[in-house]
């Protein structure tokens, strides 16, 4: 594992992968996302298996308002872009920019989460309790697990921002920011499927 001898304090092109720790973290995190893929697939499968089981309770077409969900999707997509900007700032050595873009990402995430909470609240008052039907349970569990991921991502990135607000970019924190961004993209990927499979297909057939 001979390290390329570079001056340790000059900005490398990929600071997140400049150290062995960074490379380990980077790779381990990607693998974790591979596992998460199966985790969400299991939840999607369960939802798809049970979505017909509304048992006289409200079903997708009684509940979903596509326009709100469309806006949520846009917000999350945009937050994906802002986190990309954060990474580009990082690679440019612009730590302030990194923090700023990460903050924007968090804000967008919060907006998304707020809307999701509103959505659940609304469905609940339209008669879709968690125990109403198998459809209800599997819907809330799938979308809720995604929501929990968003919440965790927000907490994680916020912690990073606060912890490193004054430290500048270092070889230790670059991989941390980078993996957080990967996580955020992954959340977005999952949402794309929730949007298509749960909401659009729920309304469309």
């Amino acid at each position, binding site marked *: 594992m001979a390290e390329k001898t570079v001056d340790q304090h000059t900005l490398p092109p990929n600071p997140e992968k400049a150290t062995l720790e960074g490379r380990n973290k980077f790779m381990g995190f990607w693998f974790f996302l591979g596992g998460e893929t199966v985790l969400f697939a299991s939840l999607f499968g369960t939802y798809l298996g049970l979505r017909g089981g509304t048992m006289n309770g409200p079903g997708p077409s009684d509940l979903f308002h596509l326009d709100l969900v469309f806006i949520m999707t*846009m917000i999350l997509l945009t937050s994906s872009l802002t986190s990309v900007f954060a990474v580009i700032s990082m*690679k440019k050595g612009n730590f302030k920019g990194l923090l700023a873009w990460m903050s924007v990402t968090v804000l967008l995430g919060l907006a998304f989460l707020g809307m999701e909470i509103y959505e659940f609240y609304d469905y609940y008052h339209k008669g879709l309790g968690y125990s109403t039907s198998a459809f209800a349970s599997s819907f809330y569990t799938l979308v809720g697990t995604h929501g929990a991921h968003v919440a965790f991502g927000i907490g994680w990135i916020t912690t990073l921002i606060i912890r490193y607000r004054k430290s500048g*970019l270092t070889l230790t924190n670059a991989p941390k920011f980078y993996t957080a961004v990967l996580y955020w993209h992954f959340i977005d990927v999952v949402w794309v499927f929730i949007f298509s499979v749960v909401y659009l297909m729920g309304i469309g057939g």
Partner: protein
Amino acid sequence: MGQHGMDPSAPLTGTPSKKTKRKLKYEMRKQLISFVFMIFLTSMAFISIASDAIPATFAIPFILLLAVIQVVLQLYVFMHLNERGNGWTNIMIWTGVLIAILTVATLMLLIGVRKW
């Protein structure tokens, strides 16, 4: 592992090389374009369901296709899965996707409601 003597918590200084800068600029453009494209895809999906003009038999596969395209964009443009040295990462992600597909198909089809 020969990193001793360095302090990993010291801030990195300097600016990226010209080459890196050029690459970043190019990347930025690529990402903006794919972002716009993703927005477009999402809107298409939305419209194909929201407007009653399009029959569900077409709309459903269509939106699923759009979702897949978006995911590939996310993975390769935003998350740089295609960069060199990501061989194992690719293997793990696509294995995960394969098993994910199997899982979803099974839970839709093989839960005893219909016999095959």
